[in-house]
Structures are given as structure tokens and as C-alpha cells.
């Protein structure tokens, strides 16, 4: 009787069975450079001004068709599968602590900045992609096992600085399996 009681779960109705299936891909990326100064090394930023992650030309917009040389960053996808890249650009801390407007590089305000990304080959400005404080959508879809360069355009807050001291934001580049 005891044996029967414990045998029952083994043959239980499978409608109560949770099915877990894993796709064993390996997800791996690197981004260079990791350190970056908006506006260029040692630059003092102006309010209500657009700065581009465009090496050596930080106040110059990329070409109508974005060139690799106009992109400050390189993502290497070393995964075994295609991946989606999402980029979150959080609010700054320290100094004037600019907040991300979430509206992209054309939308700033009092204490608010806006930022959008672009990749090599994009049509500027049509393909500008908004980087949000959190919960951004997919910036690069189905990136294969290769490198791609990207940059951003950042419009600083509309009002004058109060503190005049440095502020920082840590930009998150996330990789996930393309589905």
C-alpha cells in the first residue's frame, strides 16, 4: 500500500508537467573603448548642444550614410549565434545630474538630455535610434558573429549648468539571443 501511494506521482497526469527547454547557445560580446569622454577628452560641455560619438569631430553630425570612421565604438559579437543588442543610457549622476528625456537626440529640456544611436551604414538622421534610461528596444537586430561600429548623438540639457562639475552615466550594452 505504501509503495502504491508513492508510485502514483511517477505516472501522474502530464497536464501538470511544466516543460523547460533550453537553447544552449553561448552569448559573448566585447565593446571598445570602454572609457569615453563626451565631447572628447577633457572637453567642457556646453548646454543645449549636440555632441556626437564621432572621433575627432564631436560636434559634427555623421554623414548622410554613416561611415565607420564616424563611430566611436566597436561591438564584437563573439557569440555562437546571432544576437540582439540593446543600449540603455541612464540618467547622469553627480554635477547637474542630467536626466534622460527618453525622446532621443532632438528632445531635451530643463535638466533633461536626449540621446540616440547610429551604426555604420545607417541613414542619418532617419535611422537615429533612441537610447532610453532603461528598457530600450533592440538597437541592433540579429547581429551575426562579426564586428559593428556605432556612435551616438547626445543633446545636452537646455538650461545652463548649475554646478559646473563633472557628471557620469554608465551606458549598458546588452546582448541577448536573437529570436
Amino acid at each position: 500500500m505504501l509503495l502504491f501511494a508513492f508510485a502514483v506521482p511517477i505516472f501522474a497526469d502530464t497536464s501538470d508537467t511544466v516543460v523547460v527547454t533550453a537553447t544552449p547557445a553561448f552569448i559573448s560580446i566585447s565593446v571598445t573603448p570602454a572609457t569615453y569622454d563626451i565631447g572628447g577628452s577633457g572637453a567642457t560641455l556646453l548646454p543645449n548642444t549636440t555632441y556626437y560619438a564621432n572621433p575627432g569631430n564631436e560636434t559634427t553630425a555623421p554623414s548622410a550614410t554613416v561611415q565607420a570612421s564616424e563611430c566611436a565604438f566597436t561591438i564584437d559579437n563573439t557569440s555562437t549565434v546571432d544576437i540582439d543588442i540593446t543600449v540603455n543610457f541612464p540618467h547622469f549622476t553627480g554635477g547637474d545630474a542630467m536626466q534622460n528625456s527618453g525622446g532621443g537626440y532632438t528632445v531635451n529640456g530643463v535638466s533633461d538630455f536626449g540621446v540616440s544611436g547610429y551604426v555604420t551604414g545607417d541613414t542619418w538622421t532617419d535611422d537615429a535610434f533612441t537610447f532610453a534610461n532603461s528598457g530600450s528596444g533592440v538597437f541592433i537586430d540579429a547581429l551575426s558573429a562579426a564586428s559593428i561600429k556605432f556612435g551616438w548623438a547626445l543633446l545636452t540639457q537646455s538650461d545652463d549648468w548649475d554646478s559646473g562639475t563633472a557628471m557620469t552615466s554608465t551606458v549598458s550594452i546588452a546582448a541577448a539571443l536573437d529570436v
Partner: protein
Amino acid sequence: MKKIIILLLAVGLLLSGCGQTSTTVEPLEPPPELYDKIWISPGKVEVGNFFPGARAEYPITIHNGNDEPTEFSIAFQVPGSTAEGYEPAPSAVEGWMIIEDPSPVLEAKETREVLIAVVMPEDAEAPAKWEFWIAVKDITQTGMVQTELACRWLVEMSD
């Protein structure tokens, strides 16, 4: 006889505890060129026939390609975009998560599994299909631009 009964009792308890989860995985070895990289696996975990009161679990594997011990963070994340047909997980799901070790320190070149489980309360509700991410980040990164790697969990509720 008494020992046999106790043994069968233990086996019965073990099997009854496992009876609510069926796990499928296709084994795969990481390519050698990833030895010096940080990687995670799997890329996606699909949970089917989930229901209030149920538990689903699967380990995430993390490899530390760095040459020194490295601390990682493992965290629940609501994705900004989801697979077609799925909704972002309700924020309450964060409270349903069990992460065996949310801040593991891996030795250089170490590969380690960390168990992830989601346990839905009996009285909870969720969309028919929902998605969350388990994000893994090397927290020794110091630059303005930092990377993280995410495993997608796609959950489909039973009818």
C-alpha cells in the same frame, strides 16, 4: 525489509518532487576560442505549461574569461522588447525569482552553473505568454560603456 521500505520511501519522495518538471537540453561544448572570453549559456530558456503554484528552474552557466577572479551580478530584468507574441513579464515576477547566488565570484577561466528558478504563487496572475531576462554582468567593469549578457526566459502559461 525495513531498510528497503525506507529506501523506497526516499525514492518515492524524490520522484514525486521531480514529477512536475520536464527538462530538455541539447548538450553543446563551447568553442575553444571562447576560453578567454566572458560568456553565458544558454541563450534561451522556454517554459511551457506553466501555472500558478508551479516552479520552473534551469541553471545559467557563466564563464569568466578574465585572468583574475571576477565578481558578477545576476539579476532579473524586464526586457524593453520581447519575442513575437510575448509580453514583458509583470514587475511582480521579480519577487518570484530565486537566484542561487546573485553575486558569484569566479576564478580566472572558471565556468560555473548558477541555478535560476521562478516560482509562481498560487494566487498570482500572468499574461498567457511573457518574457523576462536573466542579465549577467561583470561588475569589475569601470568604464563609461559596460556590457552585460542576457538569457531570455520565454514563459507560456497552460490553458
